[in-house]
């Protein structure tokens, strides 16, 4: 049965249902319980924004607070995954991946290949990303392109409460390491979410809006920005198809290419900085595999090549806005050779 719940409630529900279903699922991270060792309430925080709140009461020791030792506990999660557990590990902000990246890309991601196919590492790393919280340069980044670049990792970037639940359940059941990227600005967004458990397969993009004139490819929070832009453009007679990638690795090349074959025009919207990004990745794919269909240059709407600034004035300009997307679409739509 579908009800309206928030993105963050949907995450909690996905973990809850999987922990209920499979004993080997455990959760670990900083303050995912909250209150360990202290004299106040246990389960005091349930994660820094309360996402895992309540799970400790149901699952006790299977949800574990950690010291601030990301390399230590992410590495432990990786080791546990090779030994039969299915850890759902929280790395509070994606910005912190720099202190535990080795465990992710050199260990978890490589075991299966490096060990000749004999290892499985079913770990999920949940992590918040994105600007919009006035959290400045070290708590606002979009580092998912770096994970997408790594062979052996799967990278998920949900854009709605419905998707986050289905994709997270899929991630927990997947036998490969999954980097699960949650845009913090989406946490409070509400949407229809079935109560029962369901999965959304990886590598299947979602056409969130059909259209004929131009394809907009986006991920995460940028899907909503793109839909807003598409609505504006619709009023002006430009029909946009909006493709939500859902997972950047595996990538649903077919849906992207088919859409561009139909529209002949492409704008890619990515909140990450411009170099070696999802924006360039999708552009390159299309320039290689759908060149014959392309009627115009591919535009990319991204953050600028700068750290994320603190001041609201600057941060609001930093994030790709519906206006910028509209302008890019117009530029591409109006192009004639």
């Amino acid at each position, binding site marked *: 049965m579908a009800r309206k719940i928030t993105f963050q409630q949907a995450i909690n529900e996905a973990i809850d249902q999987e922990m209920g279903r499979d004993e080997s699922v455990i959760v670990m991270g*900083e303050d995912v319980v909250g209150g*360990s060792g*202290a*004299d*106040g309430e246990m389960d005091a925080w349930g994660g*820094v924004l309360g996402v895992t709140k309540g799970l400790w009461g149901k699952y006790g020791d299977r949800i574990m607070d*950690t010291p601030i030792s990301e390399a*230590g506990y992410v590495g432990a999660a990786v080791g546990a995954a090779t030994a039969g557990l299915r850890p759902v590990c929280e790395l509070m902000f994606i910005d912190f991946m720099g202190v535990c990246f080795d465990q992710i890309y050199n260990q978890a991601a490589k075991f299966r290949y490096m060990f000749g196919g004999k290892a499985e590492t079913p770990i999920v790393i949940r992590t918040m990303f994105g600007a919009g919280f006035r959290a*400045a340069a*070290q708590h606002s980044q979009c580092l998912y392109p770096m994970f997408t670049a790594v062979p052996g990792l799967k990278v998920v970037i949900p854009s709605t409460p419905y998707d986050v639940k289905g994709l997270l359940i899929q991630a927990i059941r997947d036998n490969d390491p999954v980097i699960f990227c949650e845009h913090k600005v989406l946490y409070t967004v509400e949407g229809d979410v079935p109560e029962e458990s369901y999965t959304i397969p990886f590598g299947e993009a979602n056409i969130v809006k059909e259209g004929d004139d131009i394809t907009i490819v986006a991920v995460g929070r940028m899907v909503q920005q793109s839909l807003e832009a598409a609505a504006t453009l619709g009023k002006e007679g430009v029909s946009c198809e909006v493709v939500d990638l859902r997972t950047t690795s595996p990538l649903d090349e077919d849906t992207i290419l088919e859409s561009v074959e139909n529209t002949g025009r492409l704008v890619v919207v990515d909140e990450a900085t411009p170099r070696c990004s999802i924006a360039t990745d999708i552009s390159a794919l299309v320039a290689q595999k759908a060149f014959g269909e392309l009627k115009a240059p591919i535009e990319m709407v991204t953050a600028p090549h700068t750290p994320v600034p603190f001041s609201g004035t600057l941060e609001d300009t930093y994030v790709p806005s519906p206006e910028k997307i509209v302008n890019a679409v117009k530029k591409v739509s109006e192009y004639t050779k």
Partner: protein
Amino acid sequence: MATTLSVEDLLDAYRTMKTIREFEDRVHVEFAKGGIPGFVHLYAGEEASATGVGMHLKDSDKLASNHRGHGHCIAKGVEVNGMMAEIYGKKTGTCHGKGGSMHIADLDTGMMGANGIVGGGPPLACGAALAAKMKGTDGIAVVFCGDGASNQGTTFEAMNLATVWKLPVIFVFENNGYAEATASKFSVACKDIADRAVGFGMPGEIVDGHDFFAVHEAFGRAAERARAGDGPSLIEHKLDRFFGHFEGDNQNYRPKDEVKRLREEVCCLKRFSAEVTQKHGISPDQLTEIDNEVASMIDAAVVFAETSPDPDVADLTTDVYIKY
């Protein structure tokens, strides 16, 4: 306790501690009103720590801080107007509004930066100490870490490196009992953080971090050692924070009334005031005068911040090397 500090020094110490307290209390209020954006971690309760350390530092000495950095900044001599404006995200801020509370830095006064990454500071402080040593000065560097940061790999590596290279750096652990909502009793595997010193070949000491005099004395010894070329030290300050982890924290992991009790029992300002008025010939009026000065200064800082302009949109792409 005996002290070599002059009355003037003591009044300075009081002024610094009071400035920190007033700054933080005021940021707390303004944050609640909605005037301040972002993640803000207040230092109230821990003033004696930054102050007792800061008094030993020259401008040429370096300080690496953490997310809870306002007190360290003030004790290192950063101007409160610029700090407040930075916390508001204004163009007149120490970092022109680009950094915010978690990234206040002022290299001219030796403040190497607050840091949004737990454990970011210790290696940086080693580097500053190395620079001082290479240049043949008697400069030192200090890094403040929380109990939470004491478990970060960078912190351990930095301590080892400091001894290997015999660096003039001092690791001050501000053990306030919590890292966010997790108690240090849970997260630190040994009894005291100071127990770790031996594993890194340096002296380790435990100090009551609410006692300005104890902090000042212990750090003095460590600083002297460092300046003399005898290498690093570890000092653990046991102390308490009087607000939540960050503004907005309901603190339900703490026993009810813990904060209230602490404010009564271990306030470093109260303790310092009692001590200096009773033993060092300072009158309550002298302190009140400072209180008033500080109150006006902080009022002025808030006005300065509130009335300062936002950064220009064009500032978005300055101060970085490449534009695309």
